[in-house]
């Protein structure tokens, strides 16, 4: 409270003080018969000098920041295409910094030099076709170079990956990432968002996940926190139950939605080809950390469960949005292992990272995944410790609970509201 009071008093006194000063200034100008629009030569010269001083201060600040933080503060690029784009970025920076210095110097320099001087009239110079032509054509040529080099690089980066590229998928949701490796067949299993259950967060499509999704839709959660179709119907049809109209409407909407989704699940079941199960079952799921192999090409596809996220690998110079209802992709070949980068950065704790770079909710700023770029030995050791989706999903415990009442939940409600 006292803080507010003091603030208000200070503001009021400040305004009063300034207005008194201005009154004083105005009275003195009146005495000297000076009008507001007449800029004195002294003021004029002062501002001209200040402009020049500002330019020098501005350049000094720029050069200081550049020497202190470099023009790519992320350090060396750790991917094949990243080396190319960094080279191109440096080239572009040389061009634009040259333009920046040239034009700002001309601007501030002329402003300083051609300040009004008694007896000197401005030079009437309305146009000059030759000059105009020069500064249309020269930028056009420079831009042509920039465009050609840029597009060549872009086409290389976004083109198809080779057949041998290792296929992985990154799955994003508020507020974490899950990686899915395609397993020995190098084929990612199919998915459909309607198959999402607690045991199958990535909604992979197999005969078993289809069945449990259907059961879940029909019977809901065992502890009745999520009602299935059957229970909803029973509740709504029981004449003994009296609901507030709002609640009733909510349940009816929920029932309608689930009935329609269930119909779609049955259609999917009819069309499902059980031979495809294998490609999903050998997939390997990994949360929190993404392991990549140095020197291998990766074809990464991306999915989003709820809203748009962006997969940003600052050190690999790679980025793509993840979009609900759409699969996006990029290819990348890491060139420097985590260990090597730690030496280069002189920081034994350094790690590569995957960050979310599209506003996605309250904990957006925490949504990241550590990326480890392994040597072949390390990678093999890590892979050995992993189990496949088949092992995780079809382990006995799950099967038992499945056959009783499909314990599952869509979404991760515990993480909401952070």
């Amino acid at each position, binding site marked *: 409270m006292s803080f507010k009071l003091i603030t208000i008093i200070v503001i009021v006194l400040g305004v009063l003080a300034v207005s008194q000063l*201005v009154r004083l200034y105005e009275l003195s100008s009146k005495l000297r018969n000076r009008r*507001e629009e007449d800029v004195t030569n002294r003021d004029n010269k002062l501002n001209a000098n200040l402009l020049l001083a500002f330019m020098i201060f501005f350049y000094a600040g720029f050069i200081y920041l550049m020497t202190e933080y470099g023009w790519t503060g992320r350090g060396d690029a750790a991917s094949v295409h990243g080396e190319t784009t960094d080279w191109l970025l440096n080239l572009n920076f040389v061009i634009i910094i040259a333009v920046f210095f040239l034009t700002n110097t001309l601007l501030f320099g002329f402003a300083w030099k051609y300040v009004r001087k008694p007896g000197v009239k401005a030079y009437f110079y309305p146009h000059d076709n030759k000059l105009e032509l020069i500064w249309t054509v020269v930028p056009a040529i420079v831009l042509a170079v920039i465009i050609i080099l840029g597009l060549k690089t872009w086409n290389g980066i976004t083109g198809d990956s080779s057949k041998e590229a290792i296929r992985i998928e990154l799955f994003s949701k508020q507020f974490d990432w899950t990686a899915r490796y395609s397993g020995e067949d190098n084929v990612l299993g199919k998915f459909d968002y309607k198959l999402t259950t607690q045991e199958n967060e990535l909604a992979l499509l197999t005969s078993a996940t289809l069945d449990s999704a259907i059961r879940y839709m029909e019977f809901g959660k065992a502890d009745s926190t999520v009602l299935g179709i059957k229970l909803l119907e029973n509740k709504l049809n029981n004449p003994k139950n009296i609901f507030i109209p709002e609640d009733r409407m909510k349940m009816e909407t929920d029932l309608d939605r689930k009935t329609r989704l269930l119909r779609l699940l049955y259609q999917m079941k009819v069309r499902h080809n059980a031979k495809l199960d294998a490609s999903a079952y050998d997939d390997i799921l990994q949360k929190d950390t993404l392991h990549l192999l140095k020197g291998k090409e990766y074809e990464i596809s991306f999915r989003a469960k709820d809203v748009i996220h962006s997969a940003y690998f600052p050190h690999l110079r790679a980025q793509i949005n993840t979009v609900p209802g759409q699969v996006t992709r990029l290819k990348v070949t890491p060139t420097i292992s985590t260990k090597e980068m730690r030496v280069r950065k002189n920081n034994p704790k350094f790690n590569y990272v995957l960050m979310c770079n599209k506003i996605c909710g309250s904990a957006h700023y925490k949504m990241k995944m550590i990326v480890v770029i392994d040597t072949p030995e390390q990678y093999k050791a890590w892979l050995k410790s992993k189990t496949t989706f088949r092992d995780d999903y079809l382990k006995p415990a799950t099967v038992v609970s499945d056959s009783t009442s499909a314990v599952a939940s869509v979404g991760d409600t515990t993480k909401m509201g952070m």
Partner: protein
Amino acid sequence: MSAITHDTHGHHDSHDHHDHHEETFISKYVFSQDHKMIGKQFLITAVFMGLVAMLLSLLFRIQLAWPGESSDFLSLFLGETWAPGGVLKENMYLGLVTIHGTIMVFFLLTGGLSGTFSNILIPLQLGARDMASGFLNMISYWLFAISSVIMLVSLFIETGPAMAGWTIYPPLSALPQAIEGSGLGMTLWLVSMTLFIAGSLIGSLNYIVTVLNLRTTGMSMTRMPLTIWAFFVTAILGVLSFPVLLSAAVLLMMDRLAGTSFYLSDIIVGGEMLENHGGSPLLYQHLFWFLGHPEVYIVLLPALGLSSEIISTNARKPIFGYRAMIGSILAIGFLSFIVWGHHMFITGMNPFLGSVFVFTTLLIAIPSAVKVFNYITTLWRGSIVFTPAMLFAIGLVSTFITGGVTGIILADSALDIAVHDTYFVVAHFHIVMGMSAVFGMFAGVYHWFPKMYGRMLNTRLGYAHFWVTLVGAYGVFFPMHFVGLAGAPRRYYDYSVYNEFDTNTYEMMLDLNVIITVFAIVAAIGQLIFLFNFFYSIYRGPVAVQNPWRSNTLEWTTPVEHIHGNWPGALPIVHRWPYDYSKPGAEEDFILQTVPLAEGEEEH
């Protein structure tokens, strides 16, 4: 309540005698149909909105510089609900960022810049009695005013304002389960913007009609001041692009309220599996940026127009390459419609389409370069008078260069990958819009204040304001490039996550964030100088003379006292272009547009 303006009665020519009537307080100051009053209404409303948006930015800058530390300033403005214990809440951080962006882009720089100066200058510089439709002009302002109020109201509701960023990308903006601001806050945002767009459209149509039809005798299109050319092209951009934003907003509204699936597909949010299937979030982005990019030029062109006029007047030289300037305004206007995809290189849009947008976007650099070189050449061998307006105009050219060149990096899709959505982008568009366009607006206020209020602003306070603003704003936005190049994503509540993988970079970001915030506070305090000067001078500033800057254009031939119909007698007749400064053979260093060509004198 009846401030009668009989004294102006006698000045009117017979032409508009029939619509002259006694003015009440309401018809003169509130529901005014006079373009000069409407212009001032736009300005004051926008200045207020700008202040609010600046305050919001200070609130989140404090969080960024001193993350997690309790601040009395935060608790003073946000209270226990949004800053418990003086520490900003994560959601409110996003809300502040969203509303800051929305107000600055739309309410300050679109409503405030083009609304104010198009209104004041179009009739005055063209020699017209008023806008083509005074009534529609009034409606345009009041829609703007209502939309401003709704936007402000959204800051005070329980679930908070819209929190999805000023671009409000769905699905985040469509699903209240995803973030609380996407509930009522988002609805208010959409309602507010719908009214804003309606107002802006009516205004723009009025500007276009006025420019095409109400030019006085002799005022051919190629004798119009560059300000009018800029407003004219700006209005065309607005008319063609704002309806597309409206369609994007309407579809979003339907997804939110009517269960449609324009932007939604295969979503599970808050534990709920949605049925929506087949929609595309990319559709929204295309629609949004089809406005969003021309919007940048809707913001910038008026500023460039104002500065052309101010630089020429105060360098006492004709603007260099008048026709090239018109050509580049037209080229920028045209190109601005075919570059929107450069905001979407990494959104999952087809990469080939991306390369087309690289090409068109980089082309814009050519007319922009022409404008910069023409400004510089106008200064060359001038006789420069540094009024506060002139200083701001020079500041505009400097920031236009600084902000423009980084656009070349961002327009190059291959380079954009690594800096997309980082602070590098934030630095780029703040230097262009937060500095260039705002400097243009300040320049305009300082230059035309005598025309608006019949009084002079204090010049010395103007200097102080300029220097604090230039140093402060560059100090805020220039270091942001380096934060961005280090890879810092924008819209992060804090960067402590860096501690887990790269402590050195974290320290650098924290250092720079403190510097940025300190400059932001200094710059914000500098704006108080302007506010004081502005409001003080409206009432107590020295009375202005008719043509204080010794300028050529028609607005300086009107009397200092505002009258309905602008000119007391017949409308002025134009004999020459507006830039005859320091013409050889002339006595004075300026020749009003109304002065006939002397014998043997050539038109420039």
